[in-house]
């Protein structure tokens, strides 16, 4: 590669030197004489009149001047600025496998551009200026004050009609006469946009090019043209649509394998194994399975009671009963909500600016997700609420805000999780807002669709049939709520004070009671009592005031009506808007002739009917996503659930079901699960039961038959898994009896020590589960961070699983872990007494969910004797204390052991 770099570098130097010489010596180079032929030959197959890859035609003078979806390819006079030359020079084009350009041909292109890119017959492409050129400029520079929400001077600059109508000073434009048009005059005089006020509305001054465009539009008579989407939206072929994940899941028959199996999963898995001369591994022992399933479903180790109860239940169906108990436990939702929060990119802070400001109300969304999992909310409904909850219910006109209405609004927090710095004027410009929108689109597409659409923000997707039209069409669906030209700042303005009527009235009652109390205290104070009494009254007022609570609000997304028009942004740049785009879903996921408008009409419910101001776009999207035959929605979700049960997905790239993603290892199993999932009313708990009762999931992880195959995707044994970050922390707290199981509500704050160590603050009863700790992006508790708690950028579909020294250092040296070991050892002594064997056995059962092996017991006992001797030799503790310390050493070692941290 090094050689290539230097070769390119040298070539560039030579070219520039020779280019200049050529220009000086020769007559002008003309397109028709010099480059036309070679471009047709080497580039025309893809970029020709017929097949316009990236909407670029390099075979005609018109095509080359017009450029493609990434804008212009030619900058006459400056080859290095011309992407036509730069891409050829870098070797990026023609793509690998196609015939390359020779050095002489590259030289020709360079020289032609350097000489001004001249044509024998210059192409006539003076495209008329229309509202599609002018309106984006008004949106960018003017409508913050003269638009949807504000009409300063009575002026609205959003449409031709409103511009001609003008404001209090008369029409803003005179047809055909830019010089006489008030708006042009004011801009020329630099009165508008008003420079010193610009930052307060997060607008930048107008550029001379933009002004010239407005002048040309007015001069031409402010012409309007209708969008002609059909002609420019790239065609998606049937071949594109034939890709496996764009086709609905197929009905599959359950394979017959030699021996009869009860669970269809086993039939699919075993058939593949049999083809390779393999079989499923034996079932793991009962205690191993108990520990595995407790971590899997609740993220906590099995308690002694759970162990006793399960071992005592020897009747048939014991396993199913255990699964039911775990699924019914509130701990289940706390565990599985976390997986969804990763996909949603949940965090308790804005993730921007130095202070990483706390997002005070988003925890209600976290609670919603926990409750939804515990209640086994059908996944289709779960998605609809998160994407369009505000359009599902008529909260504005509801007499009472019921828990159902509240849930629908809180659910939309799903689309409000990403880093958002738009709370301050200086970081609330259009590009800042577009970043928020882009991140939300990435969260939506990767978590729900399993597609990587973010590429299409700047150019057509390199692998999947997803165009810029698809990308901007999708963002347009969200525009009634996420509109870069009509924005709500991320904190106060973009929260709603809609909570359940019950919570609201309790809050109001509390505030009113305090108000009355303070009022009466103040009356007493006005009577000028003696000094002692006065102090007492003042203290009481202060105490009463401190009981005030902040107004309950929710961090939601809601339809605001009147979305701005959408334009495709060339190269993703907000300064180069292209053609107008209508809201729609990606073409590869819809048939030719599909109409999003029709879909909206079919999907509307009472709340989005005429008169409510809601567009119904997101609701239509949500209903389309949750159609029973949707090719992606169910597959992506069952695959994610499978991944969390087995450590890897059937499609290993859980966030990418596209061409560049991996193919499913068991396509028929995936389709069977997806279709059955939908049939079983999208029940996630049904999915858990089906998977956990399979022999496949209950296999041992101890298979030592390494030689037979190294293809883990065949699932010939269970993988050995390391606890994830929350499981490590919650388990340490659980075994030491310090886990406070209080659920829900505002997150517990964290404390940052001088050296940067971040820990959660203790509650009265211990520490709460990790999901209820504040997740400020810049202050993730160190223990969680060390064990691969993800950076939400903007979300995380697959966590890392690292094995690094800071993990060891934390568990070995950290004071809090050591204190937890003290609690753990005190508990062991309280439950097992002073006998060393009993203590060892108890410690193993609590932490590792089984008795120690003879060998472990032997080593443990010997070490406890030695521990005791060392402490006595140290001479600072009594013999009795030395025994206590010996048990502490053992418990601390257990918390550090691989047997504790790994799940068989």
């Amino acid at each position, binding site marked *: 590669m090094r050689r290539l770099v230097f070769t390119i570098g040298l070539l560039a130097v030579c070219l520039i030197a020779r280019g200049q010489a050529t220009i000086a010596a020769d007559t002008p180079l003309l397109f028709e004489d010099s480059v036309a032929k070679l471009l047709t030959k080497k580039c025309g197959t893809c970029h020709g009149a017929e097949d316009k890859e990236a909407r670029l035609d390099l075979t005609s003078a018109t095509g080359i001047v017009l450029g493609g979806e990434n804008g212009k390819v030619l900058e006459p006079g400056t080859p290095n600025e011309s992407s036509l030359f730069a891409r050829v020079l*870098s070797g990026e084009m023609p793509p690998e496998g196609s015939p390359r350009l020779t050095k002489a041909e590259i030289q020709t292109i360079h020289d032609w551009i350097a000489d001004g890119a001249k044509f024998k017959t210059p192409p006539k492409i003076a495209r008329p200026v229309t509202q599609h050129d002018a309106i984006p400029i008004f949106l960018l520079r003017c409508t913050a004050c003269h638009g949807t929400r504000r009409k300063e001077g009575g002026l609205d600059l959003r449409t031709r009609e409103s511009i001609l109508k003008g404001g209090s000073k008369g029409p803003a434009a005179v047809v055909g006469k830019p010089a006489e048009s008030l708006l042009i005059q004011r801009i020329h005089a630099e009165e508008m946009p008003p420079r010193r006020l610009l930052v307060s509305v997060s607008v930048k001054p107008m550029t001379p090019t933009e002004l010239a465009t407005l002048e040309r539009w007015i001069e031409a008579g402010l012409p309007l043209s209708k969008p002609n989407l059909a002609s420019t939206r790239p065609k998606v072929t049937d071949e594109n649509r034939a890709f496996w994940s764009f086709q609905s899941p197929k009905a599959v028959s359950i394979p017959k394998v030699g021996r009869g199996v009860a669970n269809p999963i086993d039939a699919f898995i075993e058939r593949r194994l049999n083809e390779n001369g393999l079989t499923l591994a034996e079932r793991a022992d009962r205690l191993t399975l108990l520990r595995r399933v407790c971590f899997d479903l609740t993220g906590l180790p099995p308690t002694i009671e759970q162990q006793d109860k399960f071992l005592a239940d020897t009747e048939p169906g014991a396993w199913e009963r255990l699964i039911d108990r775990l699924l019914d436990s509130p701990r289940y939702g706390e565990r599985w909500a976390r997986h969804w929060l990763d996909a949603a990119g949940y965090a308790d802070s804005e993730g921007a600016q130095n202070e990483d400001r706390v997002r005070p109300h988003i925890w209600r969304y976290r609670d919603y997700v926990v409750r939804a999992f515990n209640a086994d909310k059908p996944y289709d409904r779960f998605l609809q609420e998160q994407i369009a909850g505000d359009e599902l219910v008529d909260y504005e006109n509801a007499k009472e805000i019921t828990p159902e209405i509240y849930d629908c609004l809180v659910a939309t927090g799903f689309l409000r999780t990403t880093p958002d710095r738009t709370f301050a004027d*200086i970081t609330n410009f259009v590009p800042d807002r577009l970043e928020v929108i882009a991140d939300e689109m990435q969260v939506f597409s990767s978590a729900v669709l399993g597609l990587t659409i973010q590429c299409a923000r700047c150019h057509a997707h390199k692998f999947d049939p997803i165009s810029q039209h698809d990308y901007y069409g999708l963002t347009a669906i969200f525009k009634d709520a996420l509109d870069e030209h009509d924005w709500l700042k991320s904190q106060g303005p973009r929260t709603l004070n809609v909570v359940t009527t019950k919570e609201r009235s309790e809050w109001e009652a509390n505030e009113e009671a305090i108000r009355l109390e303070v009022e009466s205290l103040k009356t007493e104070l006005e009577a000028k009592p003696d000094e002692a009494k006065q102090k007492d009254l003042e203290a009481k007022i202060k105490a009463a005031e401190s009981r005030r609570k902040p107004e309950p609000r929710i961090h939601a997304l809601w339809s605001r009506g009147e979305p701005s028009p959408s334009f495709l942004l060339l190269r993703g740049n907000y300064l180069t808007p292209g053609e107008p785009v209508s809201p729609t879903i990606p073409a590869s996921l819809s048939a030719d002739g599909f109409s999003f408008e029709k879909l909206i009409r079919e999907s509307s419910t009472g709340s989005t009917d005429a008169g409510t101001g809601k567009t119904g776009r997101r609701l239509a999207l949500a209903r389309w996503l949750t159609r029973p035959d949707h090719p992606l929605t169910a597959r992506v979700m069952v695959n994610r659930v499978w991944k969390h049960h087995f*450590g890897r997905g059937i499609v290993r790239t859980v966030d990418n079901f596209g061409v560049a993603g991996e193919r499913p290892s068991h396509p028929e199993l995936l389709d069977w699960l997806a279709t059955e999932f939908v049939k079983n009313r999208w029940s996630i708990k049904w999915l858990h039961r089906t998977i956990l009762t399979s022999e496949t999931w209950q296999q041992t992880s101890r298979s030592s038959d390494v030689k037979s195959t190294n293809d883990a995707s065949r699932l010939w044994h269970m993988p050995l898994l390391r606890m994830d970050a929350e499981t490590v922390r919650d388990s340490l707290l659980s075994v030491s009896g310090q886990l406070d199981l209080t659920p829900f509500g505002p997150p517990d704050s964290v404390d940052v020590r001088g050296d940067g160590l971040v820990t959660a603050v203790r509650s009265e009863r211990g520490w709460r589960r990790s999901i209820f700790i504040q997740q400020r992006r810049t202050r993730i508790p160190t223990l969680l961070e060390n064990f691969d708690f993800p*950076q939400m950028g903007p979300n995380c579909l697959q966590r890392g699983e690292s*094995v690094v020294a800071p993990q060891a250092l934390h568990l070995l040296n950290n*004071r809090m872990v050591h204190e937890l070991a003290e609690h753990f050892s005190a508990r062991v002594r309280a439950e097992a007494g002073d006998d060393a064997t009993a203590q060892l056995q108890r410690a193993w059962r609590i932490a590792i969910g089984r008795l120690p092996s003879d060998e472990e017991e032997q080593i443990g006992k010997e070490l406890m004797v030695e521990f005791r001797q060392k402490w006595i030799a140290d001479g600072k503790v009594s013999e009795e204390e030395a025994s206590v310390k010996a048990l502490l*050493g053992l418990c601390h070692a257990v918390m550090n052991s691989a047997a504790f941290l790994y799940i068989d």
Partner: protein
Amino acid sequence: MSGMQNISRRQLFSQVAGGVATAALAGLLNEDAFGAGETLGPSPHHTPQARSMIHLFMNGGPSQMDLFDPKPELQKRHGEDYFKEIAGEVEFPQAAGALMRSAFEFAQHGESGMWVSDAMPHLANQVDRIAMIRSMQTTNLTHEPALYKIHTGSEFIGRPSIGAWVSYGLGTENRNLPGYVVLDDPLGLPVNGIDNWQAGYLPPVHQGTRFRATGAPVLNLQRDFDEPDSVTRLERDLIAKLDRIHKRDRPGRPQLGARIASYELAARMQLAATDALDLSQETEETHKRYGLDQKVTESYGRRCLIARRLVERGVRFVQLFINSQIWDNHSGIGTALKDACERTDQPVAALLEDLDQRGLLDETLVVWGGEMGRLPIAQLTADKDPKKAGRDHNRNAICTWLAGGGVKGGVVHGATDELGFSAVQDIVRVEDWHATILNQLGLFHEELFLERNGLKDRLTGVTHPRIVKEILA
């Protein structure tokens, strides 16, 4: 580690679930595991000019026209109104004043005759060792996004920093120390805090490890509770014994070997990091040279000296930070900029000289610079007192310099307009700067990527950077 010798590298990588864990292991496992003759971690793409890098990051935006880019025209046109020309590029329009000359005197130095102002008398003696870029530009004029940009190539939170990329691309040369060490200021974190050295989506092992310049250098590096050392040793023995049984009963699970290795590395790091930070091993003369004997330079000097000791020990990437934003001179630039220079000038010059004298400068790339530059117009305080004036942010012109590691000394690259508002000649974009740094370390920017979401994610993203070869030896 002896139990791992039977496993070949390929076997190991093929068996670990997920590529992410694989790369983390590569940084961890060492010659003990693979035997002689196999390389440590990944290899460079081409012969590197520099083995290590020290990044002297100057948070806040040092004023280029007051330090390295003299503007006689600005002296002449002092007091002239200029706001209108650059209105869109001013963060605080309400406070914008007229063109403002530099309060510092410039002179030419060294054999090269490079211009440096009298704010940096010590660096002035080192100009023949450095290549000055006067024409860098960034994309955002606000600190936070500009910091993300310079450190991660993107204006947004969540992407890996350049140090993490280098660690990911080259691995470590010292198995007892992390590959990427951050020396932040005990007085406080820079803007964006620890995100400046994040690993983003790269394996977490590549994130910068903070070494504190005083006290325990690494979080949890020392036992934070009382216990006789003999007990601690015994407990480690117990863990090791239990883990060996656990591993023996689970053959073919390489992550268990890596886990045992991580506990061993933890123990070694406790010693190695403590030794690297023990400045009492240095002579009094060295202490003086770095300014450890003076209050104003003591803190930064200490970090510069530690940086030298770390690259000596094979740490790949060392990054120095200063608290808050001492270069963000919105007001009183005459004194504030001078103060910032006084804290850092002597230590930085000492580092260059010391590295050179020890023969380390040839293989160590030293890079100095901030996230943005400053404007030629004054920024006024509420009372409009010109003596209190400073300069506002500027994304269009940044001075940054590189030294050692195959970089030419005594060169000036690029130029700004006559007032110093914007680079106009040989513009260096942030991605060009990144690609140039990677190039010196033996990495080609296009080949350094992580497959993610079906894409090759790079430090330089989807840009087409140009290596600034004019400054390379």
